């Protein structure tokens, strides 16, 4: 399994995936819709999958002495690795921002506990639709992305807009008390991500087993 992940990182991933993963640091920008970070986290895998189609990555993998389900597993692990690394990279910048620029982000939600909770949910939905649809054919990347981007974008818009309503201001807060109140969102998001990734794997494997390359 480690070998397949090595393959993904060394020859299969498009360099752009690394750039978009690094964009987690955007949460230090003074006025910016931080939801864009998640959209970059969806764009990165899309570009890598497009690149994979161009480089015949699936054919190369199919000829290796590995199980067909491992091909799916390695792709899913790459996506999870990129998204989790991106969130991890964003964390120090989120902390730093509060110290360096204490005035809030006028453009939308702060990089707070709720933000990360929403992020996990957005990624969970995007990944499930994108990956399970992609593995139906192993080449229709564009359709898969388009379908998955609709709920992901709506999710980001919802997150960015809701914090402007007075009754949901607490979602925009970076005060400790408010962030504790936001904690259930993070927990639900994290759980949703884990459960959805397992479901994504199972459904994608089922789809990919039927594909004639």
């Amino acid at each position, binding site marked *: 399994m480690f070998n397949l992940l090595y*393959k993904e990182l060394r020859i299969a991933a498009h360099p752009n995936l690394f750039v978009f993963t690094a964009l987690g640091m955007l949460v230090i920008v003074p006025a910016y819709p931080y939801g864009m970070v998640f959209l970059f986290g969806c764009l990165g895998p899309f570009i890598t999958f497009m690149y994979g189609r161009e480089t015949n990555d699936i054919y190369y993998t199919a000829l290796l002495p590995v199980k067909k389900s491992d091909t799916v597993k390695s792709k899913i692990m790459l996506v999870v690795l990129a998204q989790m690394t991106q969130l991890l990279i964003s964390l120090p910048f989120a902390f730093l921002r509060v110290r360096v620029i204490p005035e809030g982000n006028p453009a939308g939600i702060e990089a707070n506990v709720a933000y990360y909770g929403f992020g996990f949910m957005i990624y969970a939905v995007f990944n499930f639709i994108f990956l399970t649809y992609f593995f139906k054919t192993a080449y229709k990347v564009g359709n898969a992305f388009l379908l998955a981007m609709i709920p992901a974008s709506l999710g980001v818009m919802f997150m960015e807009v809701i914090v402007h309503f007075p009754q949901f201001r607490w979602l925009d807060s970076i005060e400790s008390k408010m962030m504790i109140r936001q904690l259930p969102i993070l927990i639900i998001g994290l759980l949703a991500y884990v459960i959805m990734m397992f479901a994504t794997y199972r459904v994608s494997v089922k789809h990919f087993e039927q594909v004639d390359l």
Partner: protein
Amino acid sequence: MSVLSVIGLTKRYPNFNLQDINFSLSQGKIMGLIGKNGAGKSTTLKCILNMVHPDSGTIKMFGQDFKANEEKCKQEIGVVLGGIDFYKHKKISDITATTKRFYKNWDEAAYQKYLQTFSLIPEKRVKDLSSGMKVKYMITLALSHNAKLLILDEPTSGLDPVSRDDLLGLFRQLVVDGERSILFSTHITSDLEKIADDITYIKDGNLLKSAKKAAFIESFQHLKEPGETGELSLEDIMIRTERSRYDV
């Protein structure tokens, strides 16, 4: 001993059927799989490799069921899919560094030797290799993990006559010690005239004949036209079998 047996292979598509394909490749031999474009050669090879799911049929490789022992069997084979380049912007050295991790029998010394023999430069990118060099690189990878069976889909298509002859000579050399076997699909029948031991001919998804080269050619001599004296070549056989007339 048979290294590869294809038994009753059938694959149905909406507009094309591969019907009941049967053949067997012996150790140390080269088998040519012939047929015109679209006859079902690549589909047959992909079915053998489980890349395409056959509707029925069995593939036995090295005496075991391929589907049940796919990972194990793939350790022992090398595949060249004609016209499919992998990671064309990557360097040979990067692709090798990745590929070798998957093979238990990877022999680094052999790899270095083949690189030198074929004048492959590790720093070159796949897109900068000529078609012949790409095939040689894929063969280098196969030989470096000690593949016993090479499955080559149209490896000589698109090559100039010199490169083709060069590769054919190499294929012949590879089976000399009787350890390796080659299954080789092509529509360039003159290639097989030079190197194949056995010929399997697929026409419109059906197996026309699979036999030793001499017996194969012999069995098609009824296609000779009145007055013809010499033996028909594989090309003559194929053209006369496939010839179509258009009512225009």
